[in-house]
C-alpha cells in the first residue's frame, strides 16, 4: 500500500513530525498550527493546562481522532517522510506502527496471555505456539510485569491491580513491535508507587522505542523526559505550542514567560 513502509525504521533523527497541524471538532478548532519534531529513541513529554489540547495532539499521531466522526485534521504529520493524513494511507497501518497506552488501564476482558497475544496475532505474527509464548513472556518482561503474572497467565486481565493492568497494557502495546509508543497520562489513575514503576519502565523502553507522553504532572515530565513541549490555550480556546526544548533547559531557563509561570505553578 502506502510508501510509508518503504522507509526504514530508524531512518533519521526524528521519528515523527507535525507541520502546521490544526485539529477541528466540527467547526471548533481544538489545536492550531502545531510544529513539532520528535527525536528518535527519546522521551518527549507534552505538558500544559487542562483543555489545552495536548491529548488531542497526541492522538493525532496515530489517527485515533478518526474514531470521532466530527473531527478533522489540517496540516501534515510526517512519518518516514510520508503524510499520514494522505488519502492513500490506511490508519490501521499507522496504528500498527504507532502504539498507544491510554490514561485508564483498559485490558481486554480476556486472559492475560490473550491480552498480549491478540495484537500480535491480528498483525500477522506467524510463530508457532512456542514462539508466541516467547513473545508474550518477552513483552511482559519488558513491561516489568512478568514476575507478577507469570503464574496466572490464564486469569482475566481484569483480575490485576491498576498498576499491573497498566503495565499489561504497555506489554500489549510493545508486543506488536511498534516504532513509537504514545502514552496519554499513563500514570494518572495510579498510586505513587505504581506511578514510579511506570516511570522507570518508560526509561527502559526508550532504548527501543520513541516515546511521546502526555502528562499533567510537571515533576513527572521533569524526571522522566528528554524533551518537553509546553502547550497553552489561546483566547479563541484553541491549543497552541508555546515552547519546545530539552527538558532540563525548559525547566531551568524557560524562554517564554508563560512557560515560566506554568512551571512555577502560578497558573494551570
Amino acid at each position, binding site marked *: 500500500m502506502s510508501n510509508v513502509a518503504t522507509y526504514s525504521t530508524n531512518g533519521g533523527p526524528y521519528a515523527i513530525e507535525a507541520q502546521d497541524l490544526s485539529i477541528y471538532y466540527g467547526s471548533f478548532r481544538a489545536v492550531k498550527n502545531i510544529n513539532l519534531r520528535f527525536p528518535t529513541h527519546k522521551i518527549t513529554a507534552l505538558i500544559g493546562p487542562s483543555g489545552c489540547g495536548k491529548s488531542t495532539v497526541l492522538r493525532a499521531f496515530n489517527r*485515533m481522532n478518526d474514531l470521532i466522526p466530527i473531527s478533522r485534521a489540517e496540516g501534515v504529520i510526517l512519518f518516514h517522510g510520508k503524510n499520514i493524513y494522505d488519502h492513500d494511507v490506511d490508519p*490501521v497501518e499507522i496504528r500498527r506502527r504507532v502504539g498507544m497506552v*491510554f490514561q485508564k488501564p483498559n*485490558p481486554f*476482558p480476556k486472559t492475560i496471555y490473550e491480552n498480549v497475544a491478540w495484537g500480535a496475532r491480528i498483525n500477522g505474527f506467524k510463530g508457532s505456539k512456542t514462539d508466541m509464548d516467547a513473545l508474550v513472556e518477552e513483552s511482559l518482561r519488558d513491561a516489568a510485569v512478568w514476575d507478577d503474572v507469570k503464574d496466572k497467565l490464564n486469569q482475566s486481565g481484569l483480575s490485576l491491580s491498576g498498576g499491573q493492568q497498566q503495565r499489561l497494557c504497555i506489554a500489549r502495546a510493545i508486543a506488536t513491535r511498534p516504532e513509537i509508543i504514545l502514552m496519554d497520562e499513563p500514570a494518572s489513575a495510579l498510586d505513587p508507587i505504581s506511578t514510579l514503576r511506570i516511570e522507570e519502565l518508560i526509561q527502559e523502553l526508550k532504548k527501543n522505542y520513541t516515546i511521546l507522553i502526555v502528562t499533567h504532572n510537571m515533576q513527572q515530565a521533569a524526571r522522566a523526559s528528554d524533551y518537553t513541549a509546553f502547550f497553552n490555550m489561546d483566547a479563541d480556546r484553541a491549543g497552541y505550542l508555546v515552547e519546545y526544548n530539552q527538558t532540563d533547559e525548559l525547566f531551568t531557563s524557560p524562554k517564554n514567560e508563560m512557560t515560566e509561570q506554568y512551571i512555577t505553578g502560578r497558573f494551570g
Partner: protein
Amino acid sequence: MSQPPPDQPSAAPAAPATDLTTLFPQGEGIQAQIARRQRNATIWRFVFLGATSLAVIILTTLLLSIINQSFGLVAEQTNIPETQLIVNYQKSLMLEASNVALSSEDDAALAEGIAADAAGVGLLGNAYTTQNQDTLRALSIGGVAPTAETVQSGAYPLARPLLLYTTATTVADKPQIGAFLAYYLQVADEVMAEIGYFPLDEATLAQQETTLLALLGATELPTIVPAEYEGDIVIAGSSTLNQVTREVAKRFRAEGFQGAIKITSVGTGAGFAGFCAVDGGVDIVNASRTITQLELESCRANALNPVATVVGADALAVVVNAQNDFATDITLEQAGLLFSSAVNWAEVDAGWPAEAINRYIPTTDSGTMDFFVATVFAAQTLADLPYDSLVTVFQANVSAGRCRAAEAEQRFYADRFVCDTEEAFTARCEGENPTTGCTLAPRDHASLEALVQAEVIQPEVLQAWFLAESIFRRDEIVATALEEYPSADVHFRRWLTWDFITRPQSATPELAGVRTAILGSLWVVGIGLLAGFPVGVGAAIYLEEYANKRKRFNSIIQTNINNLAGVPSIIYGLLGLTVFVRVLEPITSGAIFGVGDPTTANGRTILSAGLTLALLILPVIIISSQEAIKAVPSSLREASFGLGATRWQTIWNHVIPNAIGGILTGVILAMSRIIGETAPLVVVGAATLITSDPSGPFSKFTTLPIQIYQWTARPQQTFLLIAGAAIIVLIILLFILNIFAIYLRNRYARRIG
C-alpha cells in the same frame, strides 16, 4: 430583564444573609429534618412494595385460575370402558380357543372334567379345589399358594371378595331380605370355612355390619328369628357363591323361615342382568366380583342403587389334574398364557411337555372369568393389543357403515379390506370424489387406537367442575352428579396429562392433544429466530458501529425502527400475507423446490409464518442489540484500534463478545413474544383443525396459542378446560425454552468474562 411595575414595592434582589450557615437547620432541627426525609423514604418504600405485591398477587391469581381449570372432578361417560373392551376381547379369545374342553357354569362339572383329564387345567373357586383334593391340585402363583393367610393379606393375586348385592328399596319392601342378609352375616364365617372359602377378618366384618345397619335403618343389629319372616327370596348369580348361599338358606329354613328361597347358579353377569332389569325379579345377587361400570349404569337407569355386602373371600385357583407332575408354580403372565394364546404346555414354560392343554373354564357370564381376565390383563391398554385385534375390536363394536367409512378415510391393511370391498373401493377412487383412503398409507397402531377411542369407547365429559369446588364441595358434587348423570362415572381428572401433550389434535375434546401444536410452535419460533436473529443483530451492528449517526438518513432509519417495535402485530400478519403467502408463494409453498404438499400447495406454510414472526421481532432484536453494543465501553474499542485492529476485528473480537449477553437477552424477549403470538398467524393462515404433525418448513401448521384461541371459542365446556391445560403447556414450553436460552447466554457470558 423586565422592570417591575413602578407602583409595586421594590423587587430588587434581597441581599444574601450575612451568615449562610444559619440558613441550615440548627440544634434539634437537624434531627427533625433528617427524620422528615427518612419518613419520606419509608413512604416511597411502601409504595414500591405495594406495587410489587400487586403484581405478584395478579400473576398468582392468573396462574391459580389456570390451574383451577385444569384439574377437577368430571362426570364422564363412556360407551364402553376401555378395561371392559379389553376384558371382553380377552374373554372371547379364551372362550373361542380351540383347546377348550369344557365351558360350563357348573363348577362341579368342571372339577369332574379336570379330574378325568391328565392334561386338563381349569379355573375353580377354592371350595371345589379343597373338596376334590384327591383328584385336583391348585398351582401356586408367583410362589404364593392360596391359603387363608395369603388371601386375607392380599399376597395371593387371584383372591377376590364374595359379595351379595341388593338394594335399599328391596330391603324396605321385603323385610325377609334384610333378615336373610343379617342372618347370612352371622353365620357366614362358619359356613365359609365349612365349604372351603375364607372367612372375613374382623375389620371387614365390622364394616359390613355398619353397611347392613344403614340398609336396615337400624342402630343395632337385631337378633334374627327366621320364623318371624315370610315371603319369597329370589337369589341368582355366581356358581362360586352358590354352595354357600344354599347352605345358609338351608339353615335359615331349618330355623323356621316360612317362605320359599329360590337360588339359581347362572353366573354373576347373568345375575346382575336379572337384578338390574325392571321386572327381573332377583332380590339378591350372588357375586364373585364387584359390579362393573356398565352393570351399575344399567341398574341406575332403572332407579336401582345396588348395595354390596362382603360375606367372604375366595381364592380363584388355577387347578390341574393330580397326576400332572410338572406344573407347580406359575407367574401371573403364565396364567394368562395358559388360558389364552398357548396351545400346548411347552409354550407356557419351556421345561414342560409339548402336549395339548385342555381347558375347563366357566362361561362368558361368569364372574370368575371376568375377575380372572381383569386381574391377569389388568395392565393392558389398547396399546398392548395387536393391530389385528384392534381391528377386530373396532369392527365388532361399530356399525358396518361406520366401519366402511373409516376404511374409506384410511385403510386398515394395504393388501386387504375389512369392511369395504375391492370393487367398491376401486370404483370410488377412480370416481370424481376420491376419499383420503385412496392416497394415504394404511393406519398405524397409534391412529387405530385413536379411532377405537373415538368411535368405540367414546369418552364424553358430561360436566366438569373446577379444582377449588372439586376439593371443597366434593360430596355435594358427587351426589348431584349421580342424580343428574346416572350412567356417568364421577372421578377426579387431570386435563394436563402426558397423553394430552403427546396426542394430536382431535375434534373430540376428551381425546384431543397438543402435540401437533407444540411441534408447530417449535418450528415457527425456530424459523422466526433463525431468520430474525442474524438480520436483527447485523442491522444493530451496522447502525451502532458503522453508520454515521449525524446523517439525517440514518437517524430517520433509527426512528422508524423504534416506532416499528410498537406496531400492532396484526399489521405484520397482513404484511406476511401479502409478501410471503401471496407474492413469494412459489418459494414459501416449496413448489419451486418441488417439495410442497400437493394437497395444500399454497403459501400458508410454516415458512411463511416463521418469516412473518421474524419481521415482528426484528425491531425488538435490533433495539436490544443496539443497547447491548452501546454498553460496550469505548475504551475497549480504542484499545483494539490502538493495536492496529480493523473495525471488523474490533467488532468480532471485542464488541460482539462483550455485547452477546445483552443481545441474547433481547432474543429471549423476542422468543417469549412470538411464542405467544396469535393474530399475525391467523392472518397468515394457521390451520384450524390439523391432526398431522408438521413434517418440514412447507407443511401446514398450527401453534399452541392458535389452538388455545380456537378451543376457547368453542361452546362446549370441555374445550375450555383443555384450553386451560394447553395454556399451562404453553407456559411450561416457554419456561423450558427460556431456561435453555438463559443457560446458553450465561455460558457464553462466562467464557468471555
